[in-house]
């Protein structure tokens, strides 16, 4: 058993629902107890979908367990077919139904429905949401496209002269993090360089379109977590090349275009030249100097985390101080990237472990998920969400992709926003004691974004907002449930330095956004030097020692 407060991924059948809900003409019959229907609200409330997910649940109860739950399933399949008239049906079990071993797939097949029925085996006690989505998409693609596969030895015919190169965009799902806008952005980008987009799947695709996936010249894997398995099968079966660069950020989008040019037989440099985005100039403009070396901790699904790290270092000039992902299936990619950034990769789905790592790294900005937003809130650090799991706020009304040229603009704006202080940063540093700066006052444009502490949310007074800010200091963490950073973990852990009053006061003059780091560095310095009482001198010696980092 694993103690869980928050979970990064849902069970695998929720992944299957993300595929079914994304598509048209697909219906999913889920053998599941009463209550599992909660999953509908993920789509209707978080994503604000205007239709119920195409899912029928058997919703068996205890009294059914002694009886015939298999009959319940068959009835549900029959009724769902009659009522919804889908083109293809998915049939599977949730965690509880897996235990009663009714073999839903086999039962459904035995009904002899006049449509393809795809049985899903999604082991709920081993696997999770992303895997469930990937497996479901793969099974669907296989079931529908395989009948159109060429003989294995037959080479792929050449694209007729004069015909534009074509591709499929694979991976976007329902409830995906910015999938709607990413898909639109990449479609626009590809069409601008003369590549036809045949099918986008699963988002918006029909069963008929899945059957025709093999017709495009190549596949673009936008979200490997969902589409890598299906695209690999298509590559084997239809000999369709796959483009695997995820176009998040300027560099990656350029690489993506080069890869597309390679498989589409286009001239790469002209494609790249035609791409226009503001990020390079914004990042080079002098006001962005203050972004240099900002410490950023990155955690999310592997694809978004790895992509964000590249943008953070190479395009924003940040320092990556932590990099991790919750989906072990893609741990290799994260490890490789972490090595490049010189950090320890964090591969875990234990939220408490992530919190510990963030506390340890003391970043100035977290790029994470909704879970890290909670952690950031507690630690008084700014956070921008870059990856699923999603929240209703992650479905903005405005066009807001992460991918492609516009995605790069969005990344610049959203990541810089919490840090934006320009010259004010210096004024704050010089005149800390201005009563309106207030030692602990947040910049006015951020008040709404750090509603961490009730006192901040409803108060305007500097005193009222103090807890949210000082929470960045380990000793001030308000939540008793969170283990304090363990001094024993430090090299000379036997000494626990104390701050004298004067030093504590001086620390208070340091702008809040670096205060946590200053406290941590000073204490570490004191421990290393065997200093028991931290004075103002220790503070500045530590500053000199660490060079302000």
């Amino acid at each position, binding site marked *: *058993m694993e103690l869980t407060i928050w979970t990064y991924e849902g069970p695998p*059948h929720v992944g299957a629902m993300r595929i079914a809900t994304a598509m048209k003409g697909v219906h999913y019959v889920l053998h599941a107890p*009463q209550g599992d229907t*909660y999953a509908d*609200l993920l789509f209707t409330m978080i994503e604000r979908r205007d239709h119920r997910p195409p899912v029928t649940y058997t*919703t068996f109860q205890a*009294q059914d367990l002694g009886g015939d739950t298999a009959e319940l399933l068959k009835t*549900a399949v029959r009724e769902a077919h009659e009522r919804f008239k889908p083109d293809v049906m998915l049939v599977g079990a949730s*965690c509880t139904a897996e235990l009663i071993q009714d073999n839903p797939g086999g039962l459904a097949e035995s009904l002899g429905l006049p449509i393809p029925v795809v049985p899903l085996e999604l082991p709920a006690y081993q696997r999770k949401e992303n895997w469930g989505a990937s497996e479901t998409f793969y099974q669907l693609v296989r079931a529908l496209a395989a009948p159109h596969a060429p003989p294995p030895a037959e080479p792929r015919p050449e694209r007729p002269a004069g015909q534009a190169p074509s591709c499929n965009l694979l991976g976007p799902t329902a409830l995906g993090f910015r999938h709607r806008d990413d898909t639109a952005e990449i479609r626009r980008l590809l069409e601008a360089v003369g590549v036809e987009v045949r099918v986008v799947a699963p988002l918006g695709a029909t069963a008929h379109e899945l059957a025709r996936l093999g017709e495009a010249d190549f596949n673009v894997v936008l979200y490997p977590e969902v589409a890598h398995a299906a695209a690999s099968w298509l590559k084997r079966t239809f000999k369709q090349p796959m483009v695997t660069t995820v176009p998040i950020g300027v560099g990656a989008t350029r690489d993506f275009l080069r890869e597309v040019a390679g498989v589409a037989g286009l001239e790469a440099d002209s494609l790249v030249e035609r791409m226009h985005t503001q990020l390079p100039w914004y990042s080079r403009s002098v006001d962005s100097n203050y972004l240099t070396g900002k410490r950023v901790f990155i955690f999310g699904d592997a694809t978004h985390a790895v992509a964000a790290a590249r943008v953070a270092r190479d395009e924003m000039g940040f320092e990556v101080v932590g990099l991790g992902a919750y989906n072990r299936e893609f741990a290799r990619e994260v490890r490789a990237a972490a090595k490049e950034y010189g950090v320890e990769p964090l591969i875990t789905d234990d939220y408490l472990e992530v919190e510990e790592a963030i506390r340890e790294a003391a970043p100035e900005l977290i790029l994470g998920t909704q879970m890290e937003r909670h952690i950031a809130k507690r630690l008084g650090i700014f956070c921008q969400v870059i990856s699923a799991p999603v929240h209703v706020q992650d479905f903005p009304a405005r066009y807001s992709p992460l991918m492609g040229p516009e995605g790069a603009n969005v990344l610049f704006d959203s990541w810089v926003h919490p840090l934006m202080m320009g010259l004010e940063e210096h004024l704050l540093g010089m005149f800390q004691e201005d009563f309106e700066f207030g030692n602990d006052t947040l910049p006015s444009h951020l008040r709404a974004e750090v509603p961490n502490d009730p006192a901040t949310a409803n108060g305007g007074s500097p005193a009222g907002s103090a807890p949210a800010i000082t929470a960045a200091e380990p000793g001030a963490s308000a939540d008793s449930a969170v283990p304090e950073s363990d001094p024993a973990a430090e090299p000379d852990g036997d000494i626990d330095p104390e701050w004298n009053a004067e030093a504590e006061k001086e620390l208070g003059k340091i702008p809040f956004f670096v205060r946590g780091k200053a406290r941590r560095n000073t204490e570490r310095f004191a421990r290393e030097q065997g200093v028991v009482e931290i004075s103002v001198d220790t503070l500045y010696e530590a500053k000199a020692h660490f060079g302000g980092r």
Partner: protein
Amino acid sequence: MNRSTPSTPTIPGCASPPAGTRDGAGSGLANGTGATNGELPVLKERGQREVFCGLTGIIWLHRKMQDAFFLIIGSRTCAHLMQSAAGVMIFAEPRFGTAIIEEKDLAGMADANEELDRVVTRLLDRRPEIRTLFLVGSCPSEVIKLDLARAAQRLDTEAGGEVRVLSYSGSGIETTFTQGEDTCLTSMVPHMPPHAGAEPSASRPGGTIGSTGTREAEPGTAPAPPTSLLVVGTIADVVEDQFQRIFGKLGVGPVHFFPPRRSAELPPIGPGTRMLMAQPWVNDTMAALAQRGCERIDAPFPFGVEGTTEWLVAAAAEWGVGRERVLEVTAAARERGRRAVARHRATLEDRSIFFFPDSQIEIPLARFLGRELGMRLLEVGTPFLHRGHMARELALLPGTPRLSEGQHVDRQLDRCRADQPDLVVCGLGLANPLEAEGLSTKWAIELVFTPIHGYEQAGDLAELFARPLVRRELLEV
């Protein structure tokens, strides 16, 4: 309306028809009908139930009892449910968590207890302020027959009185949404101390008092004089305080509320304790309390001015306080309540309403909306109908609404679309899709999370139903 005529009268309280009947008839209406007290027929349905499981009760129980922690023994689905249903609303670390059963737990049941010990130890170390730990059973834990009652007993002994460890089921196969509170409270009943002067617990054999605890169950026996009043079912702290003040003025008391704000401070009970239901879903709790000698006061539920008055009158009568005195004491509050409700009458009067089943609160609310706001009741669905506890409400229900118990969601949606109600009360999974079809909806879950009881909240309760309609009028887009 195309309500079918009652055919085979169903014995009140009898089990739903077996699963086999659900697909026999093409029409959902032929599914099974019964009659309540020979009046309104009840459409009993089996099929897909679009409802929460009992685990979701933890969302309010963990805030109500601040010294309690709820540990679900379940799957990733359970954890995901809690996070999705509750996570969006939570601004502090929740006092609940999930011990997720993994493949290795299923493979070797032998170490399930060790695993549980490890998880509980880690939890109690992180949360030393916990006084009651609930091990909450889920669908998977029940299907694999994990004996949580026994585990709770063992852990309770090991905790040596520091922490009380209890267990209950919040599983979807056993409980629907608010029934999770019922099973939780039931698990606490054996630990409620006997009140001063009362014999030790279980002093009155169950047979002498009906399972509902009402006096009718034992005609001819003189009841014990009232010694205390127990209000059963979670209500907002502020509402408790309001009721406490009114009871005080009436000379009714001492009054205890169950669940209490601190789980370690369970109210004393015994013969002489009169019980007043504040929420309609505490049916098993009432039966368990009746076993301890408490007696139920038959009353409608305290929603709206009328319901609140009748609820208070019923309680006061036990203390020999007459209706006139209740009306006198509550005159100002009733007047305020009436004025507050009246403000929404123009919006709601003659508008039709359709309730999907959710929390068992549907019938009392339909009564309030029908009688105090003049709404037309089309269908009133409830996940479960306890005829005894709901008798007073059913008697007050105006018009001839279609009553339905259980659910076949697709057929119910067909009926709803055919009815084209002005307002639909439904769960979060249905609300936006129905809005997109042009219907106005009210989220049912809000009715469980908002202070809506009593005089001072009667206007707020009416406003919850008026708001979607007002908003629809307001928007020009």
